[in-house]
């Protein structure tokens, strides 16, 4: 499946990239996807996620064509 990944704020700097397009095999959830992106490491608690621009959780399913974003806790207002 084709997935568009986006990173924001401190996580963008840590990962060293803003976005990437990947074609992972055999993954079902956001947590699975993170392992592919971070050399098998589990999704840290402090990393939040969104699927298709809506807040998601590690167990949210991902599908072909989705945009998945990872970011630190938000600090607006």
């Amino acid at each position, binding site marked *: 499946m084709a997935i568009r990944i*986006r990173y*924001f*704020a*401190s996580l963008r700097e840590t990962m060293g990239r803003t976005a990437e397009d990947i074609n992972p095999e055999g993954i079902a959830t956001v947590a699975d996807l993170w392992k592919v992106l971070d050399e098998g490491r589990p999704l840290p608690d402090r990393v939040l996620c*969104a699927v298709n*621009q*809506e*807040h998601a959780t590690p167990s949210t399913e991902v599908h072909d064509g989705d945009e998945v*974003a990872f*970011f*630190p*806790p*938000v*600090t*607006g*207002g």
Partner: protein
Amino acid sequence: MEFICLRDQPFDPYAELSAFTALLDTERQNYGAESHFIGTMRNFNEGDAVSTLWLEHYPGMTEHEIARIVSEERKQLNFGPALVIHRIGKLAPGEPIVLIAVFSAHRRAALDGTQRIIERLKHEAPFWKKEHTPDGERWVASNTKG
């Protein structure tokens, strides 16, 4: 009526309130109460001087999240028109970061609506602050308790 927007340049919250009220025209007569919140950039944070602030956001999702928060709170509290303006980009101390205005027939919904929108915006809308201090740049890790 509802007006939500992100600005990459400084704005005058009082001029924005005047413009929004003018837009309401005679509908304004339906609302006996209005409540405003203005958040401004401080020149200090966590004991350090802060000279500039960078506000990053998630284009598209940020606007949708604010709209969702306003819509859900309107259903709960039954208020009328609402205005939310939030800065992005580079800010200097003293510049407004966010303006929220809520109009309602009576005071309770306007006051509660304003407070709930700012609290939820701080926890749910994708914005991230990076500040410049005398020791260099740093990302703000979490919001203050209020």
